[in-house]
């Protein structure tokens, strides 16, 4: 896959601070995620990775008591402004939650219901998308015979891949993945990893992972979060190769070599 020589910014975060009920959990972070590349976010538990991700599609709005300041620009427009059309934003920026959260509907409806909602009127076209995305996440052969069964009857790993398929069906420009493989066995994890790699060049992806080997395999850019007395900050960021081979800060060096965090 050939990448554009000079990476173009897609999401630009400036001085973003987040607090829950006035408790600051992310403290003035600034970073850039580049178009069509894979940005991995790593860091110890509780340093605000999921919180950071939830700001990028304004899902943070749903958490009572969550306050944001700073700016996040998607293609130049500040998505934190009150005028942002949230439906359009979330259609452009898809997301996979840390815990699989399929709807308590059938497998089929999990994918066709959002499509219908976004105006795909033709039943045949919806069915075509259904098959295409289920194949992409390697679920088609497992569920083709029971598409009308409840999605909640699937295993955790299958549910997570269903959620991924559901997000892909809307063809988002940006995909936010919060530990997408943490509930998966090595085989399913490999399928998802290949899928993420195959979207490189087409979709801007931001992936949170605790798996450093996976970050090394997938990431074009790397962001290392750290927590300083409960306040999440970015200690290091840049092209993944550079950060992995010659980290600037001692914390990062220790964390990436596996001796801390």
């Amino acid at each position, binding site marked *: 896959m050939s990448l554009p020589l000079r990476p173009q910014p897609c999401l630009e975060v400036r001085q973003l601070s987040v607090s829950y009920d006035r408790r600051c959990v992310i403290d003035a972070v600034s970073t850039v995620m580049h178009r069509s590349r894979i940005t991995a976010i790593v860091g110890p538990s509780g340093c605000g990775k999921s919180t950071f991700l939830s700001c990028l*599609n304004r*899902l943070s*709005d*749903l958490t*009572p008591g969550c306050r944001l300041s700073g700016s996040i620009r998607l293609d130049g427009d500040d998505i934190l402004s009150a005028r942002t059309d*949230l*439906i*359009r*934003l*979330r*259609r452009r920026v*898809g*997301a996979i*939650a840390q*815990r699989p*959260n*399929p*709807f*308590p*509907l*059938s497998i089929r*409806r999990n994918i*066709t*219901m*959002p499509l*219908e*909602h*976004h105006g795909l009127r033709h*039943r045949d076209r919806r069915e075509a998308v259904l098959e295409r995305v289920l194949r992409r996440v390697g679920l088609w052969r497992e569920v083709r015979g029971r598409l*009308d069964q*409840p999605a909640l009857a699937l295993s955790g790993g299958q549910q997570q891949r269903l*959620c991924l398929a*559901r*997000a892909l069906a*809307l063809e988002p420009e940006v995909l936010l993945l919060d530990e997408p493989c943490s509930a998966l066995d090595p085989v399913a994890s490999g399928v998802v990893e290949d899928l993420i790699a195959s979207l490189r060049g087409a979709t801007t992806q931001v992936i949170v992972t605790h798996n450093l080997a996976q970050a090394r395999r997938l990431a074009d850019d790397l962001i290392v979060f750290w927590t300083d007395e409960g306040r999440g900050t970015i200690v290091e960021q840049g092209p993944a190769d550079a950060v992995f081979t010659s980290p600037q800060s001692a914390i990062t060096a220790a964390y990436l070599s596996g001796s801390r965090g």
Partner: protein
Amino acid sequence: MDRRPWPDGLAAALAWGVAMGITAVFGLVLADLLRHGLPEISLGFLLEAPREAGRAGGIGPVIVSTLLILAVCLLTSLPIALATAVLLAEFSHGRSGFARLIRASLDGLAGVPSIVFGLFGNALFSLALGLGFSILSGGLTLACMVLPILIRSAEQALREVPSDYRRAAAALGISQAASLRQVLLPCAAPGLAIGVVLGIGRALAETAALLFTSGYVDRLPGSLLDSGRALSVHIYDLAMNVPGGEARAYATAVVLVVLLLVANALTLGIAELWRLDGGTSR
């Protein structure tokens, strides 16, 4: 042998005793009803109009009036209750002063004795709005009476839907209205149904509030603006005012209980269909 220490054994025995006692009382009431009431029930009793103040004839018009009053009550209270519950559970974050005010008034209303609702309904619907003694007045009064139960139980049912579903829907760019319709309400359907069952129970059992609003005319109502006698009012009248009416009062009570059970079964059935429908339709 694992003999329990005596305080535990005593508590268990007490709990069992109380449970058995309650069941026994319920069984006795039911047996008593059936023993006195069943012999009086026939097709004629269900279809004919009452004669001789209810000592002869049947309860046909009374059943019709009861169903009409219940229909008016549910058709007006359900939409209002659902809308209010959605507002409280989905749009207010439960923290605003407005939501607190609504909740406080509802809890207040739930504790008001039904006779007060009767007087209120009489003053508002029968007199001020000019609906007189009518099915409409009675149904609307009952609607006011069951609203607090319906709203609080619907709010509870919505709150019990995991917030993961709300986040999943929002993350897919699905509007709040659509996510309510497609996911949250079907999910909450069993809980909503429990509220409706409680509401129907309260409405069908109500006598005091109806005496002043729908009245006690036992003819078949020609329209919603006619007075109509509800089953509970009929039972009250037979038992208190009509010498020799006891047997008929029992028979009417059996019909009331059967009606209640049928209404409950229907409600739960519809809710189950609704829940499943979210998953498979289209």
